């Protein structure tokens, strides 16, 4: 099975933007999506070991992205999934909270982002065909 990229964001537009940006950047991995932290769980379980990278929205109704990440880092089988936190919150406190919950955070992407910012974050984790 080819490694996949999981996008977890309640905003359809933000999921579309990320998905399109990844494709435009030359990423060939299959992109799977969840519109809430709760609906991400079965996707993560079904794809254990095959998630190359996860984009996680900070602010979501019900369970937030930080709360989902807090759960994932505690479970050995999911602790190593590289997670990029995606947020509109530009404050240092939000960033610090995310890194405190997951010191191995793969990246912190501020909305609205530019393609070069996205590429520099994903480059260590996925193959990019220029």
């Amino acid at each position, binding site marked *: 099975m080819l490694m996949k990229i999981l996008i977890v964001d309640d*905003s359809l*537009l933000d999921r579309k933007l990320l998905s399109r940006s990844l494709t435009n950047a030359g990423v060939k991995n299959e992109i799977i999506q969840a519109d809430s932290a709760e609906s991400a769980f079965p996707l993560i379980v079904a794809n254990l070991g095959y998630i190359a990278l996860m984009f996680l929205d900070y602010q979501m109704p019900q369970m937030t992205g930080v709360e989902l990440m807090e759960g994932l880092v505690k479970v050995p089988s999911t602790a190593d999934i590289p997670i990029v936190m995606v947020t509109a*919150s*530009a404050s240092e*406190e939000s960033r610090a909270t995310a890194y405190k919950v997951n010191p191995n955070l793969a990246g912190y992407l501020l*909305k*609205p982002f530019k393609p070069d910012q996205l590429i520099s974050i994903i480059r260590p984790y996925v193959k990019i065909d220029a």
Partner: protein
Amino acid sequence: MPDVSPKPPLTLSGMVQVLCAAVRKLVLLKGGYGFAADPEIVEKKIVQFRQRMRVDGLAKFGVRTAFSAVKFYAGVNELDHDEALGVLIIFVETDHLSRLLWSFDYPRIDEEDEEIILDGCGTLANLIAGYFVKGLCDAGCVHLQMSHFENHINTAVNGINFMPSQEKKYEIRFLLQGNRRITAELSMGHVPMAG
């Protein structure tokens, strides 16, 4: 010696200035839009209905209008108990939403699709709220937690949840280049200062 004395608390009108700066930073630096005029700021009395704020989007521009509300909380505990300090509501003409979002590199949206319009307006409100919270932090306030966005078109039948002790709000009208308009309403109680 650097001045380490605590900063004075921000008044609501001070927060309005922070909001104006946040919108300017977002639309100018990230979206490439200029302003056609300085923001117009109007103080208004909050009209309540069953302890919720009456909000009429249609009255803002006289055309189909989407609006989204983001609430702010002093901390995670307050967020969990929905004890909001204030609320920011962003109004935008549905006909202009697609182009505004496109300036931030979002995909074009179908302006007839109500679901995607609501999602788009919420996305814009979320971006503005994020920059506003950062501005408040820079002004010495505690880091406010943000709610998920709540979206409507034209009117919120049941009103918008807010801090009922507040009696006034500010309406800020931004006129962007190309006659595109964003209007914001801000109501906020006392925001604690950091430290």
